[in-house]
């Protein structure tokens, strides 16, 4: 029984790591700053959620689970605001938009 619970937790953590990898690949491969931002923020938040869920299962304590929820929710707010501010800054600085470039 314990083994099964542990496996579930580890699988969740690994799934979270996969999302992080997706975010990093997006950051490295996508053509313009906006799509990189999009890939990074979304994937990393999902990754953090899965990691937090997995660790909550592994820790098996309500206190820890609560702390992890708080970390994730604050992280969500912080990531949303940071991403918004950076995107806004890039737009004001007139960074090019890859798809519009190709349309021309």
């Amino acid at each position, binding site marked *: 029984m314990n083994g099964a619970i542990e496996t579930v937790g580890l699988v969740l953590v690994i799934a979270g790591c996969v999302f992080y990898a997706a975010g990093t690949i997006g950051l490295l491969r996508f053509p313009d700053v906006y799509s990189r931002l999009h890939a990074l923020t979304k994937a990393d938040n999902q990754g953090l959620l899965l990691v937090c869920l997995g660790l909550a299962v592994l820790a098996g304590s309500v206190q820890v689970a609560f702390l992890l929820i708080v970390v994730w929710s*604050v992280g969500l707010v912080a990531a*949303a605001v940071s991403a918004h*501010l950076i995107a806004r800054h890039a737009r004001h600085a007139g960074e090019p938009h890859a798809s519009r470039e190709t349309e021309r």
Partner: protein
Amino acid sequence: MTVGVVVDMMLGLALVALSLRVVTGGSLFRDIVLFILFGLLVALSWARLGAPDLALAEAAIGAGLTGALMLMAYRSIGADTEERPVRRRPGVALVVAVLTGSLVAVIGLAALGIERVPDAAGDAVLEALPGTGLGNAVTGVLLVFRGLDTMLEMAVLLVALLGAWTVLGDARPGRVHRVDRRTPLVGSLLTVVAPITLLVAVHLLLAGTDAPGGAFQACAVLTGCGVLMVLTGTLRPTAVAGFATRLLVVAGLAAFVLVGAGAGFVGHAPMTLTGTWAVYLIETAMMLSIALTMTLLFARARGLRGEGS
């Protein structure tokens, strides 16, 4: 080789690579960003070395606050003003760098090879700790066993602020360029994050007697809150230090001196902290003092006032 050592090696390599990039020139902005990431990795190293107290301080100060300070100063002195990043013939510098680096390596490795003496100061601290009523050995060293050092550290911080005020001269308070208020998310960020910051700071302060945390970590978090409020324009820098500001800036040092001298009057040796109440009192005063000092240093201002007033 265990997974742990693999993690250490990756962290170590990343630290070296980052530091090399930071010092070898190029875009100054890029190097400030790299320096911030360097701080984050140092915080991870403290976590690996089993020093969560330091990880807390490094995360808030080393990575966050120093980075924000650098970015703000970079903006104040104008964009890339750097004409020539490095001198032309760095040969001598390279030799000196290799020599000093090797010296550190030799000293460090030799020190690692020395057998730890059985009654080292750290062990003595752990032995004497139960008598102080504290559970966190680092807090014990800072406030009880080496309280004088910490008191003088408060003096150093005060001198740094006075120095900055002097340099500021009669110039206008530092132009802190606020984030545009039309950005709707910034307000909600403050509503969510500021109260949590305060909670975390107080939690760290109270937990610091028994668990990792304490006045320095708490003040770092509180400074973060202050910096956020300055950056969003909730707090405005002013050119005059009000009475409350002056009082708060010296509060940490004053609390230390008063409690330390008071112990002398009631028959203890001077600088003896006679109970956990004294620790809490001094830590609270220190937290408020340091946080205000750092926020003022950040804003390059003599005082702060609320947005409406």
